[in-house]
């Protein structure tokens, strides 16, 4: 009887083998996809601890692996076995669901970011809008975590996250409008192809400045880390998370940092373009890490702003600068410089 089932089994095995060795599967699971983002996020945790330690004249993690490079993985394994405390007033299922949702949301924009010529999971025509749309869902999930954990610190952190979105969302959209005008497309691969002669950081220097500032607010990084301000709100919206949900939330934040740095690289720093002695994906990852280390240095050197100052800066400075960037771009196009970035 089982001998008759054997050919069918073989067929299934063959199909599985074909799927596993297909380029799509390898892209999704290994290089531009899951494993790349996960390991890079872990690397960024280590890099941040090293950079901050350097600023504060410490040494940082040292023992796990070569100068502590395996420390984030050790921390992850430790957190998996930590006690998962779910406060009695909290909605435990909602907390765990939101931790899962944060993780999935943090990884989702990586699907549209090109890591080389044709090396992208989903080459979509609305890539830029897709990335921004997914990223704008974060504050809502963070507010849900604050609501679900039913702790005052968490809830205040979630509310601040929403206010932060009110401050940064519109400058973020308008600061990349110049690039859309120059290239006439929302496809991230085509945006990188348009930068082969000159990176967009040169004609769009205002837009780059605005977008970088806004990215700090989006990532909840130090000048704007109001939702998890350690000195005011213990750990902000992460106060009541512990064990695996905390690990997922923490990793999601670093994944978001990696994806956002890769997006800055893609939009303004030429993506995969660079001298030919290194392969294209290496250039993308290298530039991404450089952008991320600038973020870390800013964390080590700047104080935190207040909520009202953040809102005021977003609406009176960043928004006006983003509008000015549009005017500069129109001026560039009307004197005929736009053909430099035509594909």
């Amino acid at each position: 009887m089982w001998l008759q089932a054997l050919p069918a089994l073989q067929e299934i095995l063959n199909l599985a083998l074909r799927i596993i060795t297909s380029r799509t599967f390898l892209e999704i699971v290994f290089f531009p996809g899951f494993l790349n983002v996960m390991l890079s996020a872990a690397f960024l945790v280590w890099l941040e601890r090293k950079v901050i330690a350097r600023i504060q004249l410490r040494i940082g993690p040292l023992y796990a692996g070569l100068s502590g490079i395996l420390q984030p993985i050790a921390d992850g394994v430790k957190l998996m076995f930590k006690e998962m405390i779910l406060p009695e007033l909290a909605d435990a299922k909602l907390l765990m669901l939101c931790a899962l949702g944060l993780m999935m949301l943090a990884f989702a924009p990586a699907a549209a970011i090109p890591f080389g010529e044709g090396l992208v999971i989903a080459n979509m025509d609305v890539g830029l809008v897709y990335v921004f749309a997914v990223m704008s869902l974060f504050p809502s999930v963070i507010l849900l975590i604050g609501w679900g954990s039913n702790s005052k610190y968490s809830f205040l952190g979630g509310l601040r996250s929403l206010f932060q979105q009110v401050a940064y969302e519109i400058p973020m959209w308008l600061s990349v409008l110049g690039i859309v005008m120059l290239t006439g497309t929302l496809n991230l691969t085509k945006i990188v192809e348009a930068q082969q002669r000159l990176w967009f950081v040169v004609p769009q220097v205002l837009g780059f400045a605005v977008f970088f500032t806004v990215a700090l607010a989006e990532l909840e990084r130090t000048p704007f880390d109001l939702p998890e301000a350690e000195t005011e709100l213990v750990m902000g919206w992460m106060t009541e998370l512990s064990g695996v949900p905390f690990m997922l939330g923490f990793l999601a934040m670093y994944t978001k940092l990696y994806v956002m740095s890769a997006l800055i690289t893609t939009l303004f720093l030429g993506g995969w373009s660079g001298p030919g002695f290194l392969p294209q994906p290496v250039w993308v990852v290298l530039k991404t890490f450089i952008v991320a280390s600038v973020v870390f240095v800013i964390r080590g050197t700047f104080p935190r702003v207040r909520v009202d100052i953040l809102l005021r800066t977003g609406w009176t400075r960043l928004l006006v600068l983003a509008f000015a960037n549009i005017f500069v771009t129109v001026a560039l196009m009307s004197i005929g410089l736009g053909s430099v970035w035509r594909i």
Partner: protein
Amino acid sequence: MGLDAWSLVAIFEIVIFLVTFPLLVFGWLMRARGRNPIRDAPFESGQTHLGEARQRYMMQYYPYLIMFIVFDVIAMFLFTWGLAFSSVPMARNYLFLVFIAVLVAPLAYAMYLSGKREFW
């Protein structure tokens, strides 16, 4: 395989789900059972917690929220203009700059209102 972009994104999300969900199940199974009123209380810096966190909070910065609703839509419409920028004659593009300049007046008034702290 000829999959379109959205199904690839869906497969990517499924892969992430398949990796992270077992972790949560693992943590759920390994969690401490039983009640401990001190451990399970919401953290309030060592104080005994008072009441629920789900109260009414003061809705501050109201002018910003109203402006957000307006400008979010405007930003979307400006994107459609930006996409069609090269195919539209330049003279009509200048009209859009006039449109942006007109927008600045209500924005400046709203910023003047929201700068007054007694309105918060």
